[in-house]
């Protein structure tokens, strides 16, 4: 199989380049892209990428495969490269540390902005803060995010304003806490999102929905935040 990999080594004074590699894949098996990366690394140990759980839980191996972001460990080669040539690049829009490894600092700064923890100033109960099943139900489709950054780095609004627009991953989590019946900081959370950039830079392009490896819908969550802001504003 023909594979083209993005290569960049900051220790060498060379611009980034695409390296073409010919790789023999075992016949009769549809490998995952991560398996291909492992085979590549066996050939050339200098290639760098992140990986950990290899089953779509940790979110470490988010990369761009033939122009589409996804997790290498749960993306079959047949799906990523139906025409036979596999092109691997780092997630777009973030600074490259080396090869397929990106600097996620900006992504985490945006995540930190939305206060990603439960805020409740009332005295804690003896055991735990209870929820009704229907209140818990509201968190489905939100809490499952693994922060792989596939969505935010597929978002043109995030590419344009990575320092101001929170991005789909951060906003999905913002709504996760806004929707949580145990959280009491709704007004403060909404006030922090009311500026023209944090939420309102979303143009509904929906790349985030298209690439999310967990099948989540950040655009819907952003729409709900806007509705909450509107309700509060009126």
């Amino acid at each position, binding site marked *: 199989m023909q594979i083209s990999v993005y290569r960049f080594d900051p220790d060498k004074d060379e611009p980034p380049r695409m390296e073409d590699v010919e790789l023999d894949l075992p016949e009769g098996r549809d490998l995952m892209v991560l398996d291909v990366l492992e085979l590549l690394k066996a050939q050339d140990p200098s290639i760098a990428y992140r990986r950990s759980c290899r089953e779509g839980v940790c979110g470490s191996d988010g990369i761009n495969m033939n122009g589409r972001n996804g997790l290498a460990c749960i993306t079959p080669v047949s799906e990523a490269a139906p025409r036979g040539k596999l092109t691997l690049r780092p997630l777009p829009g973030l600074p490259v540390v080396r090869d397929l490894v990106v600097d996620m600092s900006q992504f985490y700064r945006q995540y930190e902005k939305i206060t990603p923890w439960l805020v409740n100033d009332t005295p804690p109960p003896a055991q735990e803060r209870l929820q009704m099943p229907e209140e818990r139900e509201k968190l489905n489709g939100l809490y499952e995010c693994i922060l792989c950054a596939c969505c935010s780095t597929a978002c043109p609004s995030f590419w344009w*304003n990575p320092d101001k627009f929170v991005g789909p991953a951060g906003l999905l989590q913002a709504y996760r806490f806004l929707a949580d019946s145990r959280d009491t900081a709704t007004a403060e959370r909404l006030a*922090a*999102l*009311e*500026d*023209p950039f*944090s939420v*309102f830079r979303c143009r509904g392009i929906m790349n985030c929905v298209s690439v999310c490896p967990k099948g989540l819908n950040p655009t819907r969550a952003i729409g709900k935040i806007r509705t909450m*802001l509107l309700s509060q*504003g009126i």
Partner: protein
Amino acid sequence: MVINVGSLGRSGLRDFVLQRVSAVVLGLYGLCITGFFATTPAMDHGALVGFMDSVTMKVFTTLAVVSLAMHAWVGMWTVGTDYIRRHYFGRGHTVYLAVYQLVCLGTIFVYVLWPLSVVWRLGGLAA
């Protein structure tokens, strides 16, 4: 809360509502004009002046022009803050952004005054 030098103290929510309300006004105005053209068999300058010369149409046209101006300003401001960034223009990007915004505001101002001056002088033009 993002505080940006080019944001001119604006609110994202206010812009969001403004764009949608102005879009509805423009949609209604478009329907009104289309309806007039569709139901007027002999369209000429006289028929058009006659239609636009009523106070209702003058007020509606003023509302549509102002809506278009507000809609355009929010849109152009957004485009400007997307593309005129430090990443592309360096440290002086705020100067470029200010010039861009002034040009946009000036252009929009002219595009408001021009049609309104025509519409509110219609009676005089017909005479």
